[in-house]
């Protein structure tokens, strides 16, 4: 009797029916697997922070789906004939979330902060072209902007800001976009240590949404900025819920607890596509995954060996099996969506016989255990990779199997991410399977990964080829896209000839949303779809 009463009571309290408490179409809930770190675009570096910053901050310009630059906080801009001066006219009447007016001083403050060596930011190198860059960012005794003969950033008036470059740069406009170049308010951050500012937890931007609440590890809540210069967003609230387990995230989507998730398990996508209440969105990306090795270690110093490894691996089958087809086979540094992509560059075809022949040519003979040997040394090396990334893990296993078929032995060494990256920094590896996030402009990553001056930068594999250096420098110092395209085509061609990596694939970004929400623009860059949240609306269909 007592038990029955208790049960009735419990059921009454809980009301065992799921309640759809949210106003349909007004509060949009996005499920994320991890929390943001910092909501300050100058210092934030991780993907989750980039995603959460996007609705809060505006950059001077933004990208369209064709990766062309279009106005955002800037109304228009002029580039001088010599390509060394960019003058931006800023939109009038733009207000910060705290009601203060936005002005050209905020723009200058933001980029001087990026250049300030005291500020820990990975974005500094993108502004290499700015006048005075070496002096302002010097490790020893950096100069202050007022000490320079030519000011790199000049506030002409409240609504005009001018940038001066030291060489014409075709990538300059492209690096001024979100989420790496959001503008921050001078009136709240002047004289404050940007690395540790309270602002990074309670940000004030000019973006379409304002931060209302950030419960660490639980959720971020934003509300529509009714004064937004681009018009009030259709959604009232954006709620980012942090749900680490991918299975649970999927359950939440099905149960109605979230309206949008990214990167569902790829094996689930076919089923999700068949669910009438859900919609699958796919966006191309700039990131690619590769199988690489130290260029300066034998036998990888021999180009025949490198090409043999390329011939040994059936990349399309990896795309099919591991990525379920949600990826493009990579032919180098640039994704097919990039203007720098050269379709005439082809990867080495899967041809194990050719791989074996090349290895034999390089002096390798089959050993007693089937593994190739040369001068008494077996062709055996370690391949390190991140243990937590499922597709990378699966890829590494398949690569190992393909190598085995041509007599090459790879030992897989799965490591946790902090350990893996630390070894990468120290160039402490033989082989690796990992990815580069990349940038929608070719310069920022191509230069720092492949230029021989960057062995302390991102050139962990110690690649060096004067022809590549030359092409990258020429492309960097040109403001004309057609010319840059020519240099990058040369770069891509030489790179493929050298076969410094087996460039594997560009994985696509897969999103699932509740049917009835419209207005997503899958911009083909990392997390680019989040730029379109300001235009997302509920149609109910």
């Amino acid at each position, binding site marked *: 009797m007592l038990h029955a009463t208790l049960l009735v009571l419990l059921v009454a309290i809980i009301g065992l029916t799921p309640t759809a408490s949210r106003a349909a179409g007004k509060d949009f809930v996005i499920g994320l697997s991890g929390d943001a770190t910092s909501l300050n675009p100058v210092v934030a570096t991780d993907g989750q922070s980039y995603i959460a910053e996007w609705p809060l901050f505006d950059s001077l310009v933004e990208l369209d789906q064709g990766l062309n630059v279009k106005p955002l906080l800037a109304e228009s801009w002029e580039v001088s004939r010599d390509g060394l001066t960019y003058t931006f006219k800023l939109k009038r009447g733009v207000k910060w979330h705290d009601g203060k007016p936005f002005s050209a001083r905020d723009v200058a403050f933001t980029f001087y902060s990026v250049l300030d060596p005291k500020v820990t930011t990975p974005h500094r190198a993108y502004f290499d072209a700015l006048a005075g860059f070496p002096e302002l960012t010097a490790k020893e005794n950096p100069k202050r902007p007022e000490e320079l003969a030519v000011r790199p950033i000049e506030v002409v008036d409240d609504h005009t800001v001018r940038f001066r470059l030291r060489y014409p740069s075709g990538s300059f406009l492209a690096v001024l976009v979100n989420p790496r170049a959001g503008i921050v308010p001078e009136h709240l951050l002047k004289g404050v240590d940007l690395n*540790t500012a309270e602002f990074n937890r309670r940000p004030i931007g000019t973006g379409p949404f304002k931060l209302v609440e950030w*419960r660490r590890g639980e959720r971020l809540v934003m509300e529509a900025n009714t004064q937004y210069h681009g018009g009030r967003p259709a959604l009232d609230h954006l709620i980012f819920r942090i*749900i680490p387990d991918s299975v*649970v995230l999927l359950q939440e989507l099905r*149960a109605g607890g979230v309206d949008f998730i990214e990167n569902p398990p790829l094996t689930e996508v076919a089923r999700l596509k068949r669910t009438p209440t859900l919609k699958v969105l796919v966006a191309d990306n700039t990131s690619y995954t590769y199988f690489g090795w130290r260029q300066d270690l034998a036998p990888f110093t021999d180009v025949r060996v490198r090409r043999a490894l390329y011939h040994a691996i059936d990349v399309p089958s990896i795309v099919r099996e591991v990525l379920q087809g949600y990826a493009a086979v990579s032919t180098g540094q640039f994704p097919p969506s990039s203007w720098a992509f050269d379709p005439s560059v082809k990867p080495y075809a899967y041809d194990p016989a050719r791989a074996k022949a090349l290895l034999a040519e390089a002096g390798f003979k089959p050993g007693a255990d089937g593994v190739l040997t040369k001068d008494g040394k077996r062709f055996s090396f370690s391949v390190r990779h991140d243990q937590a990334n499922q597709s990378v893990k699966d890829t590494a296993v398949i690569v190992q199997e393909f190598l085995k078929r041509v007599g090459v032995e790879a030992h897989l060494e799965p490591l946790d991410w902090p350990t893996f990256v630390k070894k990468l920094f120290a160039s402490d590896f033989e082989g690796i399977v990992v990815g580069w996030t990349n940038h929608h402009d070719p310069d920022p990553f191509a230069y720092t990964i492949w230029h021989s001056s960057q062995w302390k930068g991102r050139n962990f594999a110690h690649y060096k080829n004067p022809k590549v250096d030359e092409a990258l420098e020429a492309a960097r110092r040109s403001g004309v896209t057609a010319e840059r395209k020519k240099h990058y085509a040369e770069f891509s061609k030489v790179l493929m000839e050298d076969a410094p990596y087996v460039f594997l694939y560009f994985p696509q970004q897969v999103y699932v949303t509740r049917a009835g929400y419209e207005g997503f623009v899958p911009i083909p860059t990392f997390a680019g779809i989040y730029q379109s949240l300001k235009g997302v609306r509920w149609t109910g269909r």
Partner: protein
Amino acid sequence: MEPGLRTYVLKRVGFAVLMLVGVSIILFTIMRLAPGGPEAVLIGGEFSQEAAAQIRQRLGLDRPLALQYLGWAGAALRGDLGRSFKTGDPVAALILDRLGPTVQLTFGALVLALVVAVPLGVLAAVRRGTIWDTLGSAVALFGVSFPSFWLGIMLILLFSEVFHWLPPSGLSEYGREADLSARVRHAILPTLTLGLIQMASFMRFTRSSLLEVLRQDYVRTARAKGLGGGRVVWRHALRNALIPVVTVVGLSLPTLVGGAVLTETVFAWPGIGRLAVGAVFERDYPVIMGVNLMVATVVISANLLTDLAYCVIDPRISYR
């Protein structure tokens, strides 16, 4: 207080403090022996060696280890546990923020486990060898055999996906934090997951302990005096049988906290467990130190209080 007791208490407190210092030194060292470092995570996808060096310098990780420890310990003595490398939040605030959900979850699971396990244990003991006993043992065996992450996901599948009764995850819903029924609905599945696992061992202990007590002379005497079966079990036997169970409950606290780590991750429950797991994966040293120090303090204090309570309660224990 007697002088003997006072000396004993002082000695024990001094020992506890030394133990905490020892724990903190060992923790600090072990943490740094783990490969990798926080810079990898802080840099995100934009890494370069130069940026990594810059971050290590800013965080003070380029200084000798002993100096880093002394710096940390000095601040900790003043009540400052430092700031998270990742978010810049004060560690103490992060811990306080997460304490509530974890206490709610572990306490709820403990109560649930006891409420179910003790009667089941009694039933199994009293009806020893019957179907009830076998059933109870089977339930217990299942309970200890389930890993909490698996059990959690199965419960979500059943109650959210199939029946649509309960929300799959989270602590509450935005805008409904004050709504008690919503909070209870969110708490049911994680509490059940954590509770079921504990239930098993509590039930087994109750059963075996009660069986032992039921064989004692005084129980036989009570029965001989004509007391009813129920009265003998509930009034006389169970009370004594519960003493070892209470000890097991006390000892199970660390297990509960350990289970909470996984349960919190599965159910996106913003507690200490998830904080600790995240900090370990991100090498967020100040947070790892803070959480572990808090746990160590709780355990050492509990031990200290138990020891002191023993010598106050039990006259046979001398304090020299």
